[in-house]
């Protein structure tokens, strides 16, 4: 297993190099200018050119690229044009709400989705099964921004139970109660994910519940609860783990719509702000970090298969 993991790490390097090259040149193909965005709508062409010169944007493209690669190799992701601070510092700042949001959303999704999917599978073709399927369909169909605004109206505006929006850092303030800012967005995100997981769990469980070993377990006198949870669910969970892995990775890259609706300054909004402002260093830094994150999470997902299914062995 250790050898397998080491080989997979090495295999990531070409991917990372490709991401570095593509991210650098791709953003520069997009029309638009960070200097113009920074100066605002009333700046003249001459002023924009003056600022471009000061920002080093008029250097030859290959010079800019080599300087960028040199900095990355030293662990420097550059300086944000929009926020005037190191990109790495910006990512750490924005990673906190995104990471917490992703984690809580997945917890919500699993806590709702898996029991719902198991129940739907066990009570197949009953009213409960149909009701859960309809609910799952609603969860997938309702746009996140609409759901978010609705639960904001109910729980924040009407009931005043939770803050409507915004975020305050838990790490820098030491106040764990600041997690309340992320509860409504987590439920918003998690609900949609729960619907997906519920449907996946149901179909996976239905397949597994047909298997001979499940019937054999029943024949041996294992109680139904044990058959479902210990034997069937474990075997049905491999596709669920795959989906959860990719979902979590995607959430770590930022849930733009939810972050926008709830004014959570996470990575998703940072991407949008950076693209709109043509903040090249920030866009490149995010693409690099997200690519690395996907690669690592992909690897961890594969490793989890081996834990769940002893028949899977990596060497």
């Amino acid at each position: 297993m250790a050898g397998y993991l080491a080989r997979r790490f090495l295999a990531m390097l070409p991917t990372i190099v490709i991401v570095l090259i593509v991210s650098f040149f791709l953003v520069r193909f997009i029309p638009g200018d960070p200097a113009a965005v920074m100066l605002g709508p009333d700046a003249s062409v001459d002023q924009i050119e003056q600022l471009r010169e000061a920002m080093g944007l008029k250097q030859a493209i290959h010079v800019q690229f080599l300087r960028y690669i040199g900095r990355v190799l030293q662990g420097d992701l550059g300086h944000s044009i929009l926020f005037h601070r190191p990109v790495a510092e910006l990512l750490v700042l924005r990673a906190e709400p995104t990471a917490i949001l992703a984690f809580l959303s997945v917890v919500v999704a699993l806590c709702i989705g898996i029991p719902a999917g198991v129940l739907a599978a066990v009570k197949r073709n009953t009213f409960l099964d149909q009701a859960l399927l309809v609910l799952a369909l609603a969860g997938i169909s309702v746009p996140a921004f609409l759901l978010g605004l609705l639960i904001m109206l109910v729980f924040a505006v009407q009931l005043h139970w939770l803050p409507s929006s915004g975020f305050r850092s838990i790490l820098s303030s030491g106040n764990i109660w600041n997690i309340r800012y992320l509860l409504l967005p987590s439920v918003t995100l998690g609900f949609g994910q729960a619907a997906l997981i519920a449907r996946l769990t149901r179909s996976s469980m239905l397949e597994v519940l047909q298997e001979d070993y499940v019937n054999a377990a029943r024949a041996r006198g294992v109680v139904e609860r044990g058959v479902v949870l210990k034997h069937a669910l474990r075997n049905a969970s491999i596709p669920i783990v795959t989906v959860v892995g990719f979902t979590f990775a995607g959430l770590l890259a930022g849930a733009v719509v939810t972050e926008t609706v709830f004014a959570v300054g996470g990575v998703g909004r940072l991407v949008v702000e950076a693209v709109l402002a043509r903040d090249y260093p920030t866009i490149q830094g995010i693409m690099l970090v997200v690519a690395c994150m996907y690669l690592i999470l992909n690897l961890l997902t594969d490793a989890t298969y081996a834990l769940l299914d002893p028949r899977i062995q990596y060497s």
Partner: protein
Amino acid sequence: MLRSWIHRSPWVVALILLVAISGVVEAQQYGGTLRVATEGDPVHLDLMIVTASNASTIGQHVFDTLFVLDENSAPIPLLLESYERSEDGTYVSFTLRQGVLFHNGEELDAGDVIASLRRWLEYGVRGQVMAPHVVDILASATDKYKFSIVFSAPFAPMENLFAWNNGGPCIYLQEVAEVAGAEPIAEADYIGTGPYKFAEWVPGQYLRLVRFDDYQSPRGASTGYGGQRNAFIDELLFIPVPEAATRVAGVRAGDYDYAIRLPQDLYPDLQANLAINTHLLTPPSFMQIFRNTKKGLMVNDKLFQAIRMALDFEPILQSTYGTLYELNGALFPPGSIWYSDAGTELYNRADPEAAMALAREAGYNGETIRYVVSTTYHEHYNTGTVVADQLTRAGFNIDLQLYDWATVVQYRANPDLWDLFSSGHGPVPDPTLITCLNPNYPGWWDTARKTALVDEFTTTTGFDERYAVWEDLQALLYEEGSMIKTGDGYILNISSAERVGGIDVEHQPALLFPYFWNAWMK
């Protein structure tokens, strides 16, 4: 009987009077945090080189200018004690107020002002308007509070330009201004003389200003941005909330106290809500449609006149501003000292048949007209889509090109890429700040007649004389200019009536960049 009752129980009477008075007079009190929901983080607070309104809204609490605008949009001194023009108008001497402190405790003197003005003239967005007319800026050899500016000719817009912090000459520390170039100054250099000082900025979460306890306020009754400034509130927290519905929900939920720039179609519901004060920022802003006078179809004056003739501005304004608009073809609103209806007989003709006839007369044969519009700002997008629809129905062949703002800014700088583009314009205190009068602004209106009138307007002193020239200039804009104005629209902000005092309409006229000195938390 009443008299005897009062004699017998004076303390009860006093108590009753005290309760009555406290109910009538709203107590201004120190303390609290004002949470302002903005559209997003400002790009930075180096106000000299940015024209985004959220930067001005926040930065004006930190940085002062030499003049400010009063409630009639007339310039009055802020950092100045006095100033005087020579007889020929080319030499202006200034005396600063004494004892004004920067947030680091240093006293403001002429060195700070001169360095700031020099940096602004070279790199400031609005500095380019004044720079060609300035010969030199001189410090007094004997008095550190005095300085003077030498102009090549009388420069009438000086006070208005000095009063406008949006891309304007905010006063920085000398050591900051002297090394500042085209790039924004660092956060550590956000040291001004304003009633609030910069404390902290966590992008994506908040920008925090705290009261400057040693602030030296100007005297006099509060009028517009001028007069007495009391920093009652301890802390101002500007929180980026990109979604407008969330800003409204946040004020209603009690998470924010003030929200900026809301969709105008929410106005009737918000106005009916007793817990919310609505603020219509005045003077109004307006949308513009520019033509390319350098290359392409729109070099043809008659064709551009046809475009204007085809447009019905009322539905355009409704789509952009809801009910918060006025049909006004003048570049300044009624009530402004610069308001004139010169040329506006050509405004809002709304005659597509006549427009098409004029277009054919101009030689138009259905060629594609490229119309570039931004999707980033809803005013731009709403205006552009309705204009494109009206022109298409009139018979023009419109290629509506939708891009984000950064792309529009790049495209509009290239005369090969567009025929029309749309942009917004905020209110300005002086006609010299109208962007279409700048020959380098895309559209590139640069005729001999226009240049002569602008020069005359800039060097003419005396308001009546300037106004007469301004009327000619506005009429010329309608005759040959590069821009069509759609009409006036009002920005909508809201505040919590329950939590915030001092910024309802009676206390403070709503201004384009809302400020929070003289406001208090209830």
